[in-house]
Each structure stands twice: as C-alpha cells, then as structure tokens.
C-alpha cells in the first residue's frame, strides 16, 4: 500500500462534513437544500453535493454538506455526521462515519444490532413517530420527517434557527399551510434534540462573514444566464439529463428579461427539437442567419451531433454547444459526473476536424464563458463547445457574485455589410482571410451580390464545389491554421506556483477544488507542486511551457482513458513520458484524497 496522507478533517468549528442518506422522491432534497442555504447565509463557506439516482422515486440518494472555514469545496470522504434515513443503504452508510463521529437515525424503529459500531455515537430521534402524531396527511408525514431532522441538525450543529425560519417564510410566502407545517416539523426536531442530547456537538457552525460577495448558484443556471446576457436569441435542444436545467433556466430568464415591454413579444425563440440531430441543425441554421444560437446537451447528444458539427466546421458556421457531461459510454450513468467527452468533442465528426473547447471549473466561469463562447464561435466561424459536467451543472456552488461588464460588445466576427458587399467586385466566401485565417462571411437577406452556396461537400477557397486535390487541401489547411490561431483567444490557463516545486499537477474543470486542496496538503507534507488548470482547447503556449518546465506533470481528470493527457500528447510537442495520470471516474465528484493517493502511489 502506498503511503497516504489523511486529508484535513477536524472536529472544530466550521470544519466538518455531514452526509444525508435518503430515499429519492420523499422530499429530502428540499430539506437538505434548506440546510445548505441556511449555512451559506450564516456566512460560512459551504459546499453541497447531491449524489442522486437516475430515478423518480424510491432509490437511494445522498446529499453531502461540507463546511470549510478555509473554503475547500471538494467532497470530503470522512463524515463527522451521517443522517441515516434510508434503511436500504444503512449498512453502507454506517461504515462511512469516521471514528468518533455521529449517526442520526429514526428511532421509531429499532436499529439492526449486527450493524452496531462502538467507535461512533448514535443519535436516535423518533422522527416518524413524531410526524405521525403531528400530521394527518400521509404524504405530509413523509415530507415532514425531512424537515424534522433538519430541525434536529439546527440544534446539533448550530444552524441558526432564525435564518432557517426566514428561509421558510420566503419559500412558502403565499403557501401558509405549507409554511406552518414546515415550521412545526422544524421545531419538533429542534426541541427533541435540545432536550435529549448535549447540543451542540463538538463540531458545529459559527457565524462567519465569508459570503458577503458570494452567491449560491448551479452551473446550468449560470450558463443559461450567460447566454441571455451574451445576446443568444435562438436556443434548440432535446431534453437530456443533466443538461435539461440549462434550457429550463434559459426559458425562465428569457421570460424575465426578454419580453418586449411594448409589444409583449418574445425576443427569443426556444425550440424543443425532435432529437439532437435536429437541435444542432437548428443552431446551425440560426447561426447561418447571424443569430447567436446555442444548444445544451450531454454526451449521448454530442454523439448524435457529430454529423452536423463536421458540417459547421467545414462550412465555417458558428455554433455554441453546451455539453454538461455525464458518465458514459452509451447511456452510462445519467446522474453521475465525469469528464469523458473531451476526445469526442475535440475531434467531433468524421474526417479531419478540430474544435474549440472551453472548460469552466465552476458556475462563475460558466457565466463568463458563455459570452466568450459566442465571441469565439462568431469570430472563428466554427463550433465552440463548453464542457461543463453534472457536478458543476447541477450542484449549488458558493461562488463570487457574477458581474457583467456593461461595456461589452459582442464580437460578431467578419460579417460584410450591405455597403461593403456593394463595393466588392465579386464576393468569394473563403478567399480573403485575416491574420487568424478567418474569411469574411455574408448573411442571407442582405445583398444578392453576397450570395453563396453553403456546402459540406468539397469546396475551393471561392466556395465553389471542387474535387481537385490542391483546391481541397488549400481550404482544410487553412482550417487547421485557423484552429491553431484560436489558442491565443481561449481563456488562458490558471497557474499557481510554489517555492521548491518538484513536479507539476495539471487538471481541468470541476477537479479544481480537490486538486488545489490536495496540493495544500502535499505541501504540508513537504511535497510542494506547481498547479495548472487548462481552460480551453487548443492549448496555448503557456500550457506547453508549463509541461516543459517540469520533469513530470500529473494530469488529474475524471475519465478512464486519460483523455486530457491524450490531447496533451497529441496537440503539444511534450514527451508522453513527462505526463502521468491520476484518473478518478466512478461517477462521484473528486475529493482531495483521490488526488493525493493517486499522486503518492506514483512518486518514487
């Protein structure tokens, strides 16, 4: 066994982890979200991870809350407190509590004596019994059990009751009966815990002021918001987990911000397509006409979109694609997270194709990268894919408040105006290009002199059909140069250097938090390492330089086949011997422990 470093866990104030084991479809998500939001409002750095099944009702679901005064936001794998509300998974759940930790259970029924542990504390609260006494409606009895344990937690780990009550007031304003029920249940749990146990537990919350300039938001909502602000008018999609909430949010924001105040008309059009083939087709059609258009999907949708992504690449039509990655291959695990679409997105479609990819690490970057994606797509006249994932997209993250630069003007790229077309002796689609190998385009409906025929078939630099080798190659060679030129325009990598670093660690996307935490822990152990997070593809010179500067670099990513490492091997001159992999791809978000174990096991 390789040596391991224990991740930082403690039983101190504002530094602990709670895991809640529930049955899905019983209302637990809303109680858990309530706790998380209350902690956020107490000014404490907090992270919530929803580990849920691909199911509507009846299967196991977990919610993890990590409180970290130092702001670490990755999963903690050692739980100080387990709220064990699911008998199906109890045997597993009881094992996950750290020695000396606590387990809260519903004492309305006896515990399985075989699953007893004498190194942890058991807290029994008769949740079902109390709810059966206080509520009559069978559905309400089930729902309110969740609110009752939330109340108990308020006492046990000192969640501010006033804050929770305020949240209930906001949430159920106008739904008086619901509010009263929730408050009753909350109080039941709170009072029981206060009366029967020594509250608070040794680990608990205390008011901080870390969240004054922060918001609590998920990545899908942030992406949708980014698309609204970037001026997207056409959105086409086919429902798929975990990206559906992108379009749900986009619709909501459009209803809020895009109804023309005078005409009451919608300054947007959302098309629910018959499949992803059509969704990307609609985006391409709209972009061809000059609209900012996007689709949101996940891996299976990307597989279907491959055909038309090649068309958009070759015919040079902008398109923005949001890929909220889930676990593949095939249907895979729709409600689990992975970074498994890097390769298919980088080279989507048959023939020689290369695309521009953006890798946001959190909802804040999701918002910022949306406008970036449209600028790049329109300027480079090519598909741009934003690779988010389920963890970023569907979990609530505490991130710095979003900000929109009011001086922003969309980069519509090289589009000839009516006057410019008029002055041309003849318009030739792919003939004159700028220093980044982009040739000006014309939009339909502007001038008959600017008309041309978009084709996915072989074409020459004038846009005409060709089967002549030199003419064909001239165009695809320029496309390659154009792709290379875009490296300077994708978001630059984030670099964090440490004195005495012996090696590098490179990662992307949602691995950010876990890797940064791991590097802090490694430094504590006398193993400082430099950090780089790539944020776009193609890779810029800085990425190459970082790899060259270190004897070896660990590439941390969430897929089996080391797809980021493969991309680095193929698209940079760096020797593959310098790249070592740390791969975690089981479907749950990364933790620092995974990273540390992965690195230490390869250090000699």
């Amino acid at each position, binding site marked *: 066994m390789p040596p391991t470093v224990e991740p930082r866990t403690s039983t101190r104030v504002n530094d602990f982890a709670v895991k809640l084991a529930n049955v899905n479809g019983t209302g637990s998500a809303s109680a858990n979200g309530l706790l998380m939001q209350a902690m956020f409002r107490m000014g404490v750095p907090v992270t919530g991870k929803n580990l849920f099944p691909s199911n509507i009702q009846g299967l196991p679901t977990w919610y993890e809350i990590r409180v970290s005064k130092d702001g670490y936001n990755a999963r903690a794998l050692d739980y100080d407190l387990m709220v064990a509300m699911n008998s199906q998974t109890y045997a597993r759940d009881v094992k996950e509590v750290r020695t000396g930790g606590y387990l809260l259970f519903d004492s309305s029924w006896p515990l399985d004596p075989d699953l007893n542990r004498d190194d942890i504390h058991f807290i029994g609260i008769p949740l079902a019994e109390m709810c059966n006494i206080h509520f009559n409606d069978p559905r309400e009895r089930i729902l309110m059990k969740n609110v009752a344990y939330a109340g108990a937690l308020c006492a046990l780990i000192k969640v501010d009751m006033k804050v929770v009550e305020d949240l209930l007031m906001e949430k159920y304003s106008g739904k008086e009966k619901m509010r009263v029920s929730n408050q009753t249940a909350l109080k039941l749990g709170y009072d029981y815990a206060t009366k029967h146990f020594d509250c608070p537990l040794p680990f608990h919350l205390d008011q901080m002021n870390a969240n004054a300039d922060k918001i609590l938001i998920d990545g899908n909502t942030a992406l949708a918001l980014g698309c*609204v602000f*970037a001026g997207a008018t056409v959105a086409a999609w086919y429902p798929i987990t975990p990206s559906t909430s992108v379009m749900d949010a986009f619709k909501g924001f459009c209803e809020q911000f895009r109804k023309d105040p005078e005409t009451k008309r919608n300054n*947007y059009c959302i098309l629910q397509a018959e499949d992803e*083939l059509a969704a990307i*087709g609609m985006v391409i059609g709209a972009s061809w006409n000059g*609209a900012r258009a996007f689709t949101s999907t996940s891996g299976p949708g990307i597989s279907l979109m491959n055909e038309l992504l090649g068309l958009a690449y070759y015919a040079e039509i902008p398109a923005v694609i949001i890929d909220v990655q889930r676990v593949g291959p095939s249907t895979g695990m729709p409600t689990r997270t992975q970074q498994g679409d890097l390769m298919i997105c980088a080279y989507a479609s048959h023939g020689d194709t290369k695309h521009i990819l953006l890798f946001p690490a959190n909802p804040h970057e999701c918002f910022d990268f949306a406008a970036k994606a449209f600028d790049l797509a329109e300027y480079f006249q090519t598909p741009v894919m934003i690779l988010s994932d389920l963890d970023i997209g569907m979990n609530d993250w505490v991130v710095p408040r979003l900000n929109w630069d*009011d001086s922003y003007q969309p980069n519509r790229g090289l589009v000839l105006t009516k006057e410019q077309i008029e002055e041309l002796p003849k318009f030739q689609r792919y003939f004159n290009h700028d220093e980044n190998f982009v040739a000006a385009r014309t939009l339909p409906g502007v001038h*008959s002199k600017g008309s041309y025929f*978009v084709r996915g078939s072989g074409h020459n630099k004038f846009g005409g059909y060709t089967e002549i080798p030199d003419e064909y190659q001239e165009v695809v060679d320029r496309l390659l140069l154009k792709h290379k030129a875009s490296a300077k325009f994708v978001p630059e990598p984030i670099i964090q250097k440490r004195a005495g670093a012996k090696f590098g660690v490179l990662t992307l996307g949602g691995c950010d938090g876990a890797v940064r935490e791991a590097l802090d822990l490694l430094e504590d152990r006398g193993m400082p390492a430099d950090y780089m997070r790539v944020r776009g593809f193609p890779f810029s010179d800085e990425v190459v330089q970082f790899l060259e500067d270190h004897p070896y670099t660990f590439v941390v990513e969430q897929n089996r086949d080391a797809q980021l490492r493969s991309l680095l091997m193929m698209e940079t001159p760096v020797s593959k011997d310098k790249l070592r992999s740390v791969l975690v791809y089981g479907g749950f978000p990364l933790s620092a422990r995974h990273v540390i174990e992965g690195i230490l096991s390869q250090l000699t």
Partner: protein
Amino acid sequence: MPSIAKPIAQHPSLKKNNLGLTVRDYEGTMSTLCAGCGHDSITAAIVRTFWELSTPPHMIAKMSGIGCSSKTPTYFVSGAHGFNSAHGRMPAIVTGANAANRELIYIGVSGDGDSLSIGLGHLSHAIRRNVRMVYVIENNGVYGLTKGQFSASADIGSKSKRGEANRMSPIDPVMLALSLGATFVARSFSGDKEQLVPILKAAFSHRGLALIDVVSPCVTFNDHVGSTKSYLYSRQHQYKATESDFVPPASEIVAHIGSANGHISEATSVTMHDGSVVKFRALPDGYDPTDRQKVFSYLQERQGKGEVPTGLLYLDESVSDVHELNNTPDSALTSIPFEKLCPGNAELQKMLEDFR
C-alpha cells in the same frame, strides 16, 4: 456537385417582372443532372414562379439536404443564398434559420430518400411546427446517386432496373403529411408545369409549411417498364383531382379572374394569410380542400384504384406557424439590437439577490 456557370444570355425581348428582372435573372448554374431528369423541369417551374411573383432574389433562402434533388438549388436563383446541408437534415436547418430570420422566403428542395428515410423525423416535426417554408419533395422512388436502390416511396410491386420487385409498403408523403396535421398539401408531376407553377405560387403565400410532393421520374434508374414512377406510368395514372389558380392580393384579382378560361363556376376559394386567394376551378364532387378527413378518404379511395391524384389537395390557413406559436416579433430576431437583448449589470445584480 460540380457546377458549370451558365452563360448569361439576356435577349432584349425577354419580359421583365415588377422588379425589372427577366426570367434569366432567376436561373442558376447549369444542371449536371442526367439529360431528361424530372428534377430539371421542377427547377424550371421554380424559376418561373419566382420570376412571376417578382420575388427579390436576395430574400430567397434555398435549402437542401443530400441527393440528386438536393443538388438543384444551385440551378436556380444565383442571387439567393443557398444551403446544401447534410442528408435529411434540411428541415432542421430551415427551422433554426427561420426562427432567426422569418423575413426570408424559404424553399427547401428534397427527395424521397432525404425526406422519407434519413430525414423522416425532421420532416414530420417541421410539419408539426408548421415552419413557414415551401417544401418540395422531388419524388422518384429511387436512390440515384448510389445507383438505383429502392427508396421508401417505392410502391409495392414496382420493379427496379434489374427487375427486382419492391415488397415493402411505401411511405406516401401526401398521406403522411395529412395525418401529421400539415396545413398545405399538394402533389404534382414534374412534367406538368402548368399545374405546378400555380401550386408553387400558392405555397409561397401559405402561412406555414407547404408540402409539395412532385413525382419526378429518374430517367437513369427508374424509368423502365414495371416502375410506378416512370414517365409513362405517371402520365397514364396522374389524375388531376383539383385544379387551382393563384390570385395575388388586392387589385389584381379581377384581372386574373378575367384571364381564366371560363371554368370558374362556383369555385371554392381560400383566402391566404397574406391576402392572396387560391381559387379552385375544378374539384371532384363533394370534395372540400379544407376538410382533412374528406381529402384523406378521397385520396385513399383513388389511390386504391391505382391512380395518382394531383393538385393542391389540402389547405388550411387557420393554423399558427412556428413564430406565432412562440410569440416572436414580426421582424427577424436577428434585427434586434444587442442593447435590447442584454439586460445589463444593474439588472443582473438585482436578480442575483435571488441567489443569496
């Protein structure tokens, strides 16, 4: 799709339309289809239609997928933007294009392989959305570019060039469209420009998707004895179920009626969304081109007898198109300035209070 530029030969005696353009101005490059291909006749009908309607070339969007039929948009209106997309995907591309800019005039040219096999789903859903476009299916029952395989529209018993008989039931685009709720359904024959041009004109005035199935024989792979899509078979079995005239809006109505050759008795007429009128000058007894059920039954009966009923078969101007369904503005979404689309930072900050 090799293209051969057509010499511009403008004879001074060529008539000019309202825009001062001659029919030559609506032509494209030389066709590279086989000599005698039905598709070229359809191209000629499209050219004539646009010229007669005085459609500004730059406002036309010519859309297609892949196949012989999909090559034809290069053969008409050089001054229009064209989009030769991927096999079967044309309806999806048009849907998005139309969503972005509803001011353009969309014509999609497709074939039976493109629309009834690989793109059947997209065609169906474009019909359901009632995307405003003219959708022409150049239907020859065969795959030409890949040399003679049956398509999904091949009739049972129809023989391939090698003598093999098709045994699977055909997809009839007209019956399919009717059952999907299409709002404009027509069938014609490539060799009958006199019928096709008025249908095309009416189609361009239609509120939503106008589907025109045009039987268009493939001279190379499907024009032999035993084929039900040959010239001979089509001529023998075409049955003009309806005959219609297209009457442009307002003042021209009277003049147009006068020019019709006395067949307008108590003709059924349908007023189109843009104010023009479609006048049916001949209809079978009891036939109502606005009654979907009756049209369906009638066609079923005639087709059961081996006839190929043609004409503007069904018309419904009451159904909302994709824009009306989405409550979008009357002008193109692309014409909205960015300032109107971006809510700005002040709104963002206000809204972010919901995320606290």
